């Protein structure tokens, strides 16, 4: 398995370097190949990670929990790598070839590097290396947000890099205190490895662990998009190129949440479950309520989807706070289903923006008339995000609510259901307007301004794959996946 793990670390990095140095026409070949290979590699890790923890070279580690997040990132990186080929065909069509080649080289290199950093984070067996990997995701994605060279992109990138870096500064402090706590038991030469820290978590001093957990939730929570440190998120998601937005939302936020879960494991082993769960519950409920308020009145389709991401990250935090095995299984399934659904929603929104030339919801009309594939696929993605059966998100949210009720968290479960319902109305109101309101698209169709048809098949295929994943997760998750989730739930220390 070491070969698979090393390949996961080498392939996207090699693809990034190749895209940067080789002729630009090769990048649309290299990137989808790298995406597909990485997805195959994370799939290959499922059987082993479902049965044992894989520790190599003292700094590499894959267990069931990290494999869940690798699966989410691996799938989305693969899907977006294919989607990007179609997206870039229509980008800057009015500019000269030299400009387009330069843009494509930078874009593909950045996309692969971003995928590499996100795949590397869950493989890191040390809290220090995990922090470094998450920081690299920030740096690379900030450059990708800025790549569009518009006023909005420059503003979003600056806010993103400053706020996220400051947040990660707090996460670095959390890492320092985790070392301090660990070194009291494991000795001065402790290298911040995750496994021994969890093993001795009971014997660690309480105050540094409590402090490290709080700082980690606030610091990594900045990148997860928890209220009140979410302010960079809607800006960056809306101004980034759409393939990057999809990765930001479906994979990056989850990767940062993974970092919080590692601190949660240590904190709940040391302090008992009360404090860590209460902390996550507070952040989760606040984020969910904020999203429920802000999905109404959004004028930009990508901002709307960004607030939906804040909602889903809130759901993850609330699910963990319930602590029941079924709720934790729901959380981990939610990570996977959200990656597929949000990836699809952003990719669908990207097709709309390419076709209509705007992100403004008020100008996106008659989607079902104009986009025979992307229109219905976008609608499915929005319904899936709103937890309509039979999508995977329905199953995961059902499990989370069921776990909440079963563990006696009636108020939080009720708030969760109410918040999700409000967001459902906000999302579907905008989506149905975009898809079913005929004017002015039909008029434009009649005048030949907008032709019925998809901009590119490359942009449709990954969305079909996303729907397939959502259906599989919702109707009948494979046995190996449920085994993997069950093992990860045990690692998270579920209690009734």
């Amino acid at each position, binding site marked *: 398995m070491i070969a698979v793990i090393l390949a996961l670390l080498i392939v996207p990095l090699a693809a990034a370097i190749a895209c940067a140095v080789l002729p630009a026409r090769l990048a649309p070949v290299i990137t989808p190949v790298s995406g597909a290979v990485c997805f195959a590699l994370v799939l290959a890790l499922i059987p082993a990670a479902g049965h044992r923890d894989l520790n190599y070279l003292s700094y590499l580690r894959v267990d069931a929990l990290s494999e869940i997040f690798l699966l989410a990132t691996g799938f989305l990186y693969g899907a977006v790598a294919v989607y990007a080929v179609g997206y870039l065909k229509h980008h800057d069509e009015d500019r000269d070839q030299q400009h387009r080649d330069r843009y494509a080289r930078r874009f593909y290199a950045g996309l692969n590097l971003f995928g590499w950093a996100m795949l590397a984070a869950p493989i890191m067996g040390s809290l*220090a290396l995990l922090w470094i990997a998450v920081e690299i995701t920030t*740096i690379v994605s*900030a450059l990708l947000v800025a790549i569009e*060279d518009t006023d909005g992109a420059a503003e979003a*990138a600056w806010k993103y*890099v400053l706020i996220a870096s*400051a947040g990660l500064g707090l996460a670095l402090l959390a890492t*320092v205190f985790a070392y301090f706590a660990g070194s009291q038991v494991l000795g001065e030469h402790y290298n911040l490895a995750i496994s021994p820290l969890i093993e001795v978590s009971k014997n660690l001093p309480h105050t540094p662990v409590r402090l490290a957990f709080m700082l980690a939730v606030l610091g990594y929570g900045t990148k997860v998009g928890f209220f009140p440190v979410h302010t960079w998120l809607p800006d960056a998601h809306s101004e980034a190129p759409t393939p990057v937005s999809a990765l930001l939302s479906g994979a990056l936020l989850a990767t940062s949440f993974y970092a919080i879960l590692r601190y949660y494991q240590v904190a709940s082993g040391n302090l008992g479950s009360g404090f860590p769960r209460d902390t996550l519950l507070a952040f989760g409920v606040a984020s969910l309520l904020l999203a429920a308020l802000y999905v109404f009145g959004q004028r930009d389709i990508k901002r709307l989807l960004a607030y939906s991401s804040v909602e889903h990250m809130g759901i993850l935090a609330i699910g963990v706070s319930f602590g029941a095995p079924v709720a934790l299984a729901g959380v981990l399934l939610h990570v996977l289903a959200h990656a597929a659904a949000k990836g699809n929603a952003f990719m669908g929104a990207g097709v709309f923006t390419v076709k209509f030339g705007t992100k403004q919801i008020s100008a996106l009309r008659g989607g079902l008339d104009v986009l025979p594939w992307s229109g219905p696929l976008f609608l499915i993605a929005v319904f899936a995000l709103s937890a309509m059966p039979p999508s995977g998100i329905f199953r995961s949210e059902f499990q989370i609510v069921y776990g909440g009720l079963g563990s006696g968290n009636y108020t939080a479960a009720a708030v969760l259901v109410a918040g999700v319902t409000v967001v459902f109305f906000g999302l579907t109101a905008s989506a149905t307007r975009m898809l079913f309101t005929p004017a002015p698209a039909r008029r434009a169709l009649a005048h030949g301004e907008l032709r019925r048809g998809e901009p590119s098949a490359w942009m449709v295929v990954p969305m079909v794959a996303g729907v397939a994943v959502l259906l599989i997760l919702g109707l009948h998750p494979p046995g190996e996946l449920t085994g993997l989730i069950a093992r990860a739930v045990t690692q998270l220390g579920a209690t009734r």
Partner: protein
Amino acid sequence: MSGAQAPGVYEGAANVIAAGMLLLEFGMLRQALVRDQVRLYMAQSALISVLAIVIAADRNLPDLYALAALSAALKVVAVPLVLRRLLRRAGLDDEETPGVAGSNTLSPATAVLAGIVLAAFGFFCFGSLGIHGPGAPALALALAAAMVLVSFGLMIVRRDVASQAIGFFSLENAISLASLVVASGLPFILETGFLFDLLVAVVVFGMLIRAHHSRAESLSTADLTKLQG
């Protein structure tokens, strides 16, 4: 906070250096000119390297000598060079226009008063936690916590991208201070990783500052208000 006995050489040195760094942080908070803020940042970074050398000598950790050298090369030389170059390109580093002035949202006196409140809050909160060990003086750690909050204050009250970046770099200095006093035994490879990461972050901050300047023709963040809601 440091017990009934007088502190040893290492503990005393750590406390004095931490206090010096906090004072320099206040200097950055009240200093109107970015050019002078960069100089204060250089001094603060030099103090961090001195502290690393003191700890290396006192606790016999030879790795920390290398870390001190690397840290000095990066924070005392490279980061200020990058920042000065950016300021020169922006036409803000000569005698007539020596840096961005007046980007404070608060008057210097109010900013410093707010800084004192933040520093006192951080200092007493961390002091009361009682986190200390044989190599971890509680006073220096509490001063590092005060510095973290003041650097956040610096990023908040300034309205130009260069000062905000300096605020972030000094936040990193505060975390380095905390790291040296409670985690000096952290393996060298990881410490180097943190520094390398800072280097990359500096380059990216520089690129974004340049992009901002070429679009807005100033370093002010006053017009970064389009994305709301």
